[in-house]
């Protein structure tokens, strides 16, 4: 499971959704793997504004990564979606100055090329453990939690 995906996951228990303790989930016994993923600046630019930066820093720290910038890179889109043209992605002819190429490449490596193959994710609110096996996390809940 990719680190980017982890940033979009929280505890599946309904009662936990409102608790700030349920996000991000915390790793235990995580085994990591690196893979080669084709770099795509358009996707990174689109997705970074949706990444919860504080949660990413916690996750990265738990997994032993220290390369996450303290602040989210400033991607100041040159155009935002408008209602008339709701699907237009920000089109930048040049990389925004605030974000250099290296920062983007490092984020690509962390968010998309780093995967958790085995381990557990634990909810900080209810303590439920979600297992990850062969890179796939299981979020089905036992009967006392649904």
């Amino acid at each position, binding site marked *: *499971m*990719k680190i*980017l*995906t982890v*940033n*979009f*996951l*929280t*505890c*599946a*228990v*309904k009662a936990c*959704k409102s608790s700030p303790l349920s*996000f991000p989930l915390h790793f235990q016994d995580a085994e990591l793997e690196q893979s080669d*993923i*084709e770099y*795509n600046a*358009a*996707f990174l*630019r*689109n*997705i970074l504004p*949706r990444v*919860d930066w504080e949660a990413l820093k916690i996750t990265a720290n738990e997994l032993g990564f220290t390369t996450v910038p303290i602040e989210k890179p400033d991607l100041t889109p040159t155009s935002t*979606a408008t*209602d008339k*043209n*709701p*699907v*237009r*992605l920000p089109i930048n002819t040049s990389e925004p100055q605030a974000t250099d190429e290296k920062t983007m490449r490092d984020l690509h490596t962390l968010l*998309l090329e780093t995967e958790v193959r085995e381990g557990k994710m634990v909810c900080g609110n209810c303590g439920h*453990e*979600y297992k990850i*096996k*062969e*890179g*796939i*996390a*299981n*979020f*089905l*809940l*036992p*009967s*006392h*939690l*649904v």
Partner: protein
Amino acid sequence: MDYLIRFVQIRETFRRPEIEALALLANVNIDFLSYTENSPYSVVRLKDDVAAKMLIDRSISSKGIYELWGEGTTYDELHANVRHRSFSQWTLYQSCSFRFEFDTFSGSRTLAEQRSIIESFKYLGFNGPIKMKNSEQTFTIFEEYEYGNPNGPLRIFLGRFVGGSQRHVLNEYTLKKREYINTTSMDSELALLTANLSLAGEGKLFYDPFVGTGSFPIACSHFGARTLGSDIDGRMVRGRDGKDIKTNFRQYGLLSRYLDGLISDLTHSPLRKGRWLDGIIGDPPYGVREGLKVLGTKDGSRKEAVYIDGEAAHLQDKYIPPKKAYSFEAMLDDLLEFAAEMLVDGGRLSLWMPTANDEDVELGIPAHPCLELISVCVQTFNKWSRRLLTYRRVADSQVEDDLPVRQKMEMKGSTANDLNSFRKRYFEGFKTPLAGVSIEKPATGES
């Protein structure tokens, strides 16, 4: 400038919504000057060839687009219209290599007839070499006959080929050649159409909550989207015999675009709430065989954790979570609510659902105040049909408050059979086939 779109004459209700979606994606303005469901030919107005090429490049419902040089109901009319409409263009193509082609719909022409018709266009004054392969320009004579009436075409067009569609990938993506499939894998052509309707594209993130063997994520990733899938059935996500969804992505060289597969249930989704998805595509299970299941207990009560040998049962590997019966309508409502919470403004939800082809059990089209219904496409089978519904997430500022939110049906302790009207009808058999319903042709029967 006027252009002729050459549609495929199958799954007609998908065609115009697809082209409209592609116009939005390509950011081109399009006006339909003529379009009917019973013709493969549609005349549209576009800015120029560049717009026409961009529009048609991703299309699955059409074969190509042509600059319209003339139209008529007889050849006399056609020639007069060509002279009037395209006279100024003729000199542009005077010396390039070229060829003429015939495209007859519901009719046919002998080679001798074709030759004499082609010769009747001599006045265009093309002096370049005729090349049957790789010519610089291709001119096509389109003849549309009334079905079963060979006495001359109803409509004739002359067009100059401008751009081809995406249909050349269909052979590559066919399920017949895909490594990991099962009986519920969505047909690849329909999956690609769905991806177009939902505006899947470069840089975007798409999610399929009923991922199965990955048909929709593959189609979305073909068009450049990054994709995420989940399924309540862990066997689907994990794969079998060493083959899984990733095997498919690898087969198409798209592995970099597949983010992850999760084992999860839509009613207890682990996805963080927020507007971070560009698109959601799904073919929710109707539960025809087993009845729909979601996590939960039959009577709605919470149970105490069970311990076996001192370890909590639910933490053991062989643990099977409890599932309860769930109506299809309730699932659709949950899916729409989920989409409203997760989609970015302008993001789309495309979902498949059965129509059930019978006035008794016609399933209503689900509605949500934050989701504008964009298109309803229908695929008709022998005894039933299904719909592809596409919605657009409207900005919160544009949500109309007075739209009623459909009440959810809380059903406890019922059997799947009571809950799921479609499933009930399926087992009772659809008694009365509707008159006048056209039957889906096999994929190879396209014309």
